[in-house]
C-alpha cells in the first residue's frame, strides 16, 4: 500500500517535469507567454510562503504573538538589502531563534 502510493507519487512527479519537454518540439511560445512564464516563481512560491509564515499549526491566521511573522520580515529585509540566498535564510532562522529563546 505504501509502496504503491510512493511509486505513483514518483511517476506523477516525473510526469510534471517530463510533460512539456516531451511534447514541445519547437519553441511555440509567443512573447506574451514568455513574459507570463517569467512570473511563475513569483506566482507559485508565495502560496507556500504565506501559509507557513502567517498560519499556526492548526491553520489559524496569527499576526500578533507570532514570531514567524517578524522573523520572515527580517529575512525579507536582509534579502532585499543583500540579494543573498544564504543571508536571507540564516537571518530568518537566527531571528526566529532569538525571538523564541531570548524574548
Amino acid at each position, binding site marked *: 500500500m505504501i509502496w504503491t502510493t510512493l511509486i505513483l507519487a514518483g511517476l506523477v512527479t516525473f510526469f510534471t517535469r517530463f510533460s512539456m519537454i516531451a511534447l514541445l518540439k519547437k519553441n511555440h511560445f509567443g512573447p506574451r507567454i514568455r513574459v507570463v512564464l517569467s512570473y511563475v516563481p513569483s506566482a507559485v512560491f508565495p502560496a507556500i510562503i504565506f501559509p507557513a509564515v502567517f498560519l499556526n499549526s492548526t491553520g489559524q491566521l496569527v499576526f500578533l504573538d507570532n514570531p514567524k511573522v517578524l522573523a*520572515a520580515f527580517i529575512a525579507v529585509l536582509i534579502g532585499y538589502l543583500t540579494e543573498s540566498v544564504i543571508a536571507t535564510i540564516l537571518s530568518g532562522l537566527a531571528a526566529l531563534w532569538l525571538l523564541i529563546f531570548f524574548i
Partner: protein
Amino acid sequence: MNIQYKIFSKGCLDVIPLLIPVVPFGIIFGVIGIESGLGSTVTFLMSIIIFAGSSQLAFAQLFTGGATTSVIVSSVAIVNSRHFLYSAVIAQYLTKVKLFWKIILSYFLTDQAFIVSQKYFKQQPKNKDRHYHLLGSGFTLWFVWQLSTIAGIVLGEVIPKELNLAFAVPLTFISLIIVDIKKIDHLIVAITSGIFAIIFFNLPLRTYIIVAAAAGILVAYGLSHTKLYRK
C-alpha cells in the same frame, strides 16, 4: 578537459549557493519521515523516487493523518504542478537532444536547478552542449538531497524540535524570489498569490496552492500586457 565536462562543472558550481537551504530542508524531511512512521527505508527511497522536497513533506504529513493513496498522490501532483511550467520553459532549450537525455534531465528538473540552468541557457543561445549544465546542477542537488535525507534519518532523534527547522522552508522560497519581487509587478503577483493561499488554505487536498498560483498567473497575464505594449 573537454567542453562538456567544463559546462557540467559550471552547472555543479552555479547551484552551490542554493544548496545551503537544501541541507536543512533534507534533514527536516528525514526527521519528519521518521516521526511520521514511514520508516527509514521508505523515507530514504522517497527522496530518490519523488525527489521534490515540499511534496515529500506533504506526503509524510498526509500519511500520518491516515490519508488514502489517491489523496496523497493528487496532493503530490498539485504541489509539483509548478514543474509543468518549468518543463515548458526548459523544453525550448532541449528540442535538439535525444529522448534519453530528455528523460534524465526531466528527473533532475528541480526549483534550484531550473533557476540556475535556465539563466545559463538564456546566455548560451547557440551552445549545443548547454544541457550538460542542467545535468551538473541537477545531479549536484540530487546528491546533496540524498545525503541530507540520510543525515535527517540518522539525526532524527537528536535534533530538538524546538529549533523549528521547518521554518527554513518558507525562508528558502523567500530567498528564491527576493530579487524578482523588488520589481513592483512581481510584488503584486506575489502578494496576490499569498493572499489567495491564506484565504483558500482550508480547501481539500491542498488545492489552495493551485488556486493561489492560478490567481498569481492571471494577474501576471494582465500585467504582461502593460509590459509588452508600454514601449
